[in-house]
């Protein structure tokens, strides 16, 4: 339990993804079965026991110490579980500290009445606040240490030197404490079987194309082109009576999209883009956001934001795995399959015929009327490519539309995190607008924290420190006047209306494209430029 507690403690204070990977990988390597398996299940959210409510613990602690002293402590620390972990009185003659597997076993098997006494007993036996804190987190089943299930599985893959996709594909066939998985990862046994109907299949990803290099080497006849849709990548499964919808990382979002699950009447697995589709026309990403991350969906929401899938690949047809077929063959199967379902919820992502790269470039710059107008760009897929998990080099490319650009003025800067904690690295920038009296002033239109080199970061950081007007905690406001200030050329992927932003617009994926040390802020763009762009996007 001590090693697990230290792992949680460090994860909760570590910002860097790589450092988190190292922490989990080393823990899995150095901890014996079955403890490491239970830990992995805790990190991926796959532990199943009825979570204990933290409130009983408050009563338990008040039986052990003066309630007034407890109250002052709680008031100071602010978090109940942490306060209890810190103040829990030592008990002379405590038992041996429990191992993680004993704790998990107890939580899984004890009756609701017994579980509280069990937890109190463990708290008595634990020597360190860190361990008590870990126990109190574990019992609620929500660790909240800033680690995704995907990253935890990736750490297991690194520990065994296998591809993360292999573990993703196996995952739904495995059960904690995963002794068969670790035996395979340590080379002590065969890979466990992944035959498990309804499972997630790891997706194939595309590389960004390098226009200057790649087109010279690629033959347009080898590639199919499709529009790149601006939704989220999903996998729709109907297999052995299991109907599921997964995100590209394997998260099961079936419950949020009941309207899609019934769309396949044949067995099969489709790869496609989840979109809100009204009368056959794709709605904006903002509409799709209304359907994402919801626990419950009601009839009104389903009617207002009808979900659909634009299918672009088929990974299984009936019980046959089609991933080893060529893209050309899969495409034929896909077209026939989608046609047979005859569902208004599933449409085919059309291929875009072309002869030369120049012709395709022309199409990308001015897409034809209809949905392609709000596509993110184009996808290129080799006709002879197999469906390979991960991001193989060469078979698939994405060729994004050029970003929109605007010149905006740096207004506020905030300290970064982790490696960047000594730098002002998060920037809020604004464009010009006029008040009722016709006076120009800057209004914030977005925030960006990447797109610049380390060297540029140092220069901007110096500019911020040298030209601070006011400080508010970690934020500084910076001189931004028509003849003095710093202009950024900001690149972004799209615009949405926003009630939360004073300017009324919100950018998608903004980043610093270029630093315009040469440009006087007075010559930066007007807010009205963005407003006109937004109108153009909406009147497609």
């Amino acid at each position, binding site marked *: 339990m001590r090693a697990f507690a230290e792992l949680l403690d*460090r994860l909760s204070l570590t910002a860097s993804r790589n*450092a988190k990977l190292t922490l989990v990988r080393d823990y899995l390597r150095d901890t014996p079965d079955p403890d490491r398996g239970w830990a992995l299940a805790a990190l991926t959210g796959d532990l199943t026991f009825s979570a204990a409510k933290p409130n009983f613990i408050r009563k338990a602690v008040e039986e052990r110490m003066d309630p007034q002293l407890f109250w002052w402590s709680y008031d*100071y*620390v602010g978090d109940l579980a942490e306060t209890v972990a*810190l103040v829990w009185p030592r008990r002379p003659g405590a038992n041996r500290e429990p191992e993680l597997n004993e704790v998990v076993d107890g939580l899984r098997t004890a009756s609701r009445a017994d579980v509280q006494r069990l937890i109190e007993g463990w708290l008595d036996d634990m020597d360190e606040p860190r361990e008590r804190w870990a126990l109190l987190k574990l019992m609620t089943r929500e660790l909240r240490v800033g680690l995704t299930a995907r990253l935890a599985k990736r750490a297991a893959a690194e520990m065994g030197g296998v591809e993360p996709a292999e573990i993703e594909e196996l995952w739904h066939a495995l059960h904690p404490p995963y002794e068969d998985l670790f035996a395979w990862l340590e080379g002590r046994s065969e890979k466990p079987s992944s035959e498990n109907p309804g499972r997630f299949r790891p997706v194939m990803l595309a590389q960004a194309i390098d226009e200057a290099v790649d087109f010279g080497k690629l033959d347009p006849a080898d590639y199919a082109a499709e529009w790149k849709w601006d939704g989220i990548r999903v996998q729709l499964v109907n297999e052995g009576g299991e109907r599921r919808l997964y995100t590209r990382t394997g998260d099961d979002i079936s419950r949020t999209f009941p309207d899609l699950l019934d769309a396949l009447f044949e067995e099969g697995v489709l790869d496609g883009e989840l979109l809100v589709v009204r009368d056959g026309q794709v709605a904006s990403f903002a509409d799709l956001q209304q359907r994402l991350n919801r626990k419950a969906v009601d009839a009104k929401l389903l009617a207002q934001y009808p979900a659909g899938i634009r299918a672009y690949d088929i990974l299984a047809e009936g019980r046959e795995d089609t991933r080893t077929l060529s893209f050309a063959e899969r495409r034929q199967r896909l077209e026939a399959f989608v046609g047979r379902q005859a569902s208004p919820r599933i449409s085919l992502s059309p291929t875009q015929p072309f002869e030369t790269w120049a012709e395709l470039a022309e199409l990308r710059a001015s897409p034809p009327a209809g949905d392609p107008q709000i596509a993110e760009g184009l996808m290129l897929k080799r006709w002879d490519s197999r469906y390979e998990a991960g991001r193989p080099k060469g078979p698939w490319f994405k060729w994004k539309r050029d970003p929109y650009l605007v010149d905006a003025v740096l207004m506020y800067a905030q300290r970064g995190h982790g490696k960047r*904690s*000594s730098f002002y690295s998060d920037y809020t920038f604004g464009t010009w607008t006029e008040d009722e009296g016709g006076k120009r002033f800057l209004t914030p239109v977005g925030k960006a924290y990447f797109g610049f080199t380390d060297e540029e970061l140092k220069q901007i950081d110096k500019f911020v420190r040298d030209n601070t007007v006011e400080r508010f905690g970690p934020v500084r406001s910076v001189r931004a006047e028509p003849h003095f200030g710093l202009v950024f050329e900001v690149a972004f992927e799209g615009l949405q209306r926003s009630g939360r932003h004073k300017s009324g617009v919100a950018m998608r994926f903004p980043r610093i494209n270029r630093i315009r040390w040469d440009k006087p802020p007075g010559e930066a763009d007007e807010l009205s430029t963005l407003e006109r762009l937004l109108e153009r996007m909406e009147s497609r």
Partner: protein
Amino acid sequence: MIRPQDLLCPKPEGLYCAPGDFYIDPVRPVARAVITHGHSDHARAGHGAVLATHETLDIMGERYGLGFSESAQAAAYGEVVRRDEVEVVLVPAGHVLGSAQAVVRWRGLTMVVSGDYKRRRDPTCPPFEPVPCDVFISEATFGLPVFRHPPDREEIARLLRSVAQFPERSHLVGAYALGKAQRVIRLLREAGWERPIYVHGALDRLNALYQKHGVDLGPLEPATSKTKQDFAGEIIIAPPSALQDRWSRRFPDPVGAFASGWMQVRARARQRGVELPLVISDHADWDELTTTIDEIRPGELWITHGREEALARWAELHGVPARALALVGYAEEGDD
């Protein structure tokens, strides 16, 4: 009848001893002062006559220059010094090098001013000695039951595990310049870390002073002595303020550690962006405060600074009358 407040009473300048005409750890310049230890909120410059341990006087000289007071008198631990009608004895407090409790006796009344203290072993100074007394005047920096410092060796072991786990990064440990920095270095040496330890320039003079007083810190090198990548796998000690300063950029992807009792509370670590909190304190934690009161069993407990209400309540519940003095001017957070 003699009352304790006839011997010592709180004034804006600090605790005043009328029959001996001196202050203990005054926060403003006074004619006569007794100084318990060298932290800057207790030891200030500009007094007339100062009585303190030899080590504390050395520390003050190092910090403020030799003319930090008009005159200075050194007392060894246990040596009885008279101030008018009053006897003053300095007794080890276990806080930092030279730190002392001030034992004040007058007409059969004994009062002990703890200064800042701790009860656990510190390789850089002699341990706290409990003195039976009528009134014990305690600090309460960590006077809440949430503060339970773990064994310092385990914290150092966590630091060394992290160094082994992240060989491509450097470990930057924030530690106060007087006491904490030298204790951390000593603990690292005891744990078998023999490599040079790299130190921020602000620590140089006090490190040298500790070494002069016989505390072996092993090989120390300036934190400017290498190029960035060569600091991978190394431990660097710096004042806490340097952790987020531009100074920290000279190291490769540093793991920010901070050796302080405040690191017990996760929100504190998070606010400061500390990745590896090390709960190492030079102050008594809750258990040390309460066992000390239990052991001394004074007729009365006075509390100088910190979270006095909780400690006062604990004392009352355990049959020791307690009184919070609410002295101002002592850093609540600065010196741990």
